[in-house]
């Protein structure tokens, strides 16, 4: 951790917050506080400079226009690149995931991404809307992904990243893989409050940020019930 408190930055909530993206910020802050960690939360709007010294940066979903604008401003600002160079954690969701790559499509044109992850995104033949599930890369040691996706993009991974998950329901990147990660950067098409259904993923980000190998367990009764219910719903929908 950079200072005595865990600093979490939500990048551009004025642009990149469409589907309850605030949830990821609230969940990380609460899970850290429940472990007795002091937390400092910063919401940085797109007309403000991005501090380069925070521990975790969150990028949410957004419509095409705000996504393109967000990428431009982040490239001009440079703060996120400096933070990544210093080992900060980045978690990108949906549009925020796409703009971590080299390029993405918004409003019919190819836009330059932040080039923090080796991936590029374009438009798919159909919009991917619905439950998204899959086994997460075993090296990350977290249980299967459970989420909801709503995007028109398809994402192609380069050799510099690993897929976050193998898709068992939904589309994700391309119907086969979902999301991507490298070092302490992680992106997913599981949109909005993705961590609500994936508390283990939230703890993974906290472990990356703090360097802790293990965190004291929390009572995740309700999240577990939610995951079980969603798994059953996905299975029921898959039955002929």
């Amino acid at each position, binding site marked *: 951790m950079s200072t005595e408190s865990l600093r979490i930055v939500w990048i551009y909530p004025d642009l990149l917050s469409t*589907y*309850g993206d605030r*949830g990821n910020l609230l969940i990380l802050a609460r899970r850290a506080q429940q472990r007795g960690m002091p937390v400092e939360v910063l919401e940085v*709007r*797109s007309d403000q400079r991005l501090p380069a010294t925070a521990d975790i940066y969150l990028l949410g979903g957004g419509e095409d226009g705000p996504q393109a604008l967000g990428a431009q401003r982040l490239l001009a600002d440079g703060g996120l690149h400096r933070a990544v160079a210093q080992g900060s954690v980045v978690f990108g969701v949906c549009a925020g995931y796409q703009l971590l790559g080299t390029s993405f499509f918004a409003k019919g044109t190819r836009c330059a991404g932040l080039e923090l992850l080796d991936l590029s995104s374009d438009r798919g033949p159909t919009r991917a809307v*619905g439950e998204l599930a899959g086994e997460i890369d075993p090296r990350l040691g977290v249980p299967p992904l459970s989420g*909801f996706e709503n995007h028109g993009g398809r994402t192609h991974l380069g050799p510099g990243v690993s897929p976050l998950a193998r898709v068992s329901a939904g589309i994700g990147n391309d119907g086969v893989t979902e999301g991507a990660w490298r070092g302490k950067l992680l992106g997913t098409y599981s949109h909005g409050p993705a961590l609500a259904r994936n508390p283990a993923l939230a703890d993974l980000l906290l472990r990356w940020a703090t360097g802790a190998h293990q965190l004291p367990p929390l009572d995740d009764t*309700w*999240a577990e019930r939610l995951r079980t219910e969603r798994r059953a719903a996905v299975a029921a929908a898959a039955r002929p």
Partner: protein
Amino acid sequence: MPLRAKVASSVSRTAAALSRAAGRGDGSVIGGWIGLKIDPDLLAHLSAGRAIALVSGTNGKTTTTRLSAAAVGVLGRVATNSFGANMPTGHTSALAKAGSTPYAVLEVDEHYLAQVLEATEPHVVALLNLSRDQLDRAKEVAMMAQLWRAALVRHTDVRVVANADDPMVVWAATPPADPAQGVRPPHVTWFSAGQRWHDDSWVCPECGSTIQRSGEQWWCTGCPLRRPDAQWTVEDDGVLDPTGAWHKVTLQLPGKVNLGNAATALAVAAEFGVRPVDAVSRLHTVTSVAGRYAQVDRDGRNIRLLLAKNPASWLEAFDMADEAPTLLSINARDPDGLDTSWLFDVDFAPLRGRQVLITGDRAYDLAVRLDVNGVPFQHVRAFGEAVRAVPPGRLEVIANYTAFQDIRAELDRVN
């Protein structure tokens, strides 16, 4: 009316009556659907000869439609789709059922505004607000504002009554004039109904710059878009009209949001020549609207139903609800939208200190949200269990669309 339209209209009424008699619903959609199959222009035929107001927006349209119909009723009979069936099938059914009326006030789903403007050629259109709602299938907010704006460019004769507090609505209601093409902007009367929800209007729809806010004022930092002066405003427990006269408004509906809806209704009626002083007493006749705000006494509990479909309307519901035990019910079926992400756009902190119960198909999504929010709650499997779990007295029920209908069915389809 052409013969085909007459036949279609008559069949439509019969189907609606059959649907109601069979207990299959309000009959407000099926009748219109069959009528439109027989005559696709039926809505236009049924609209001809009526002075019509359309009411659209993300929230408050059912209630504002009911209040506006009551206010316009000063002048004569008003046809209206008062069951909240707000797509062309519902409009067709409502007009066919009402027979010949000089006036109509129609609630319109925001996605259908362009189509219904075309078919009904209204005298007035009221634009209430635009915010995120069922994003897994609905248009995103900026796109919706663009559609409204494009529709108004084609109907510059319509008189617009619009919310000065919502930047998206203001932008939609003021398409640019194009004198070379003979296009002039529509006439707009602005009302101020307040807006608790700001999270969909931080970015200017015109130029992409940041929108600043201070008190009730807002302005774009990059272009001339700013809050227009409102001619109709809420002040204390009444409404100020454009002449500066204040009218006390006594409603049977709770909350400041409904005072705003009343101001809108008075502004709509004024476009037909109704004086607010004549209309204001009629607003008191509106009680519950398709079950919304309905109160039912059961087992010593006074149960009040509040509908909340999206983040903006949840904030309004918390404002309306009494400090009393509260049941929250969430579904995510087709009419609700399949995505529950929006729960994290709502701050449930106002419920701290109240006894909170949760139920519905997606109660676990809500449980996780409340847990993160630090709001203690109790999960119940059924509505009856919730009623037994609270002490005698008021039980507030806040539910989203199909969850609301489920509970309404338990209470014998209360209106």
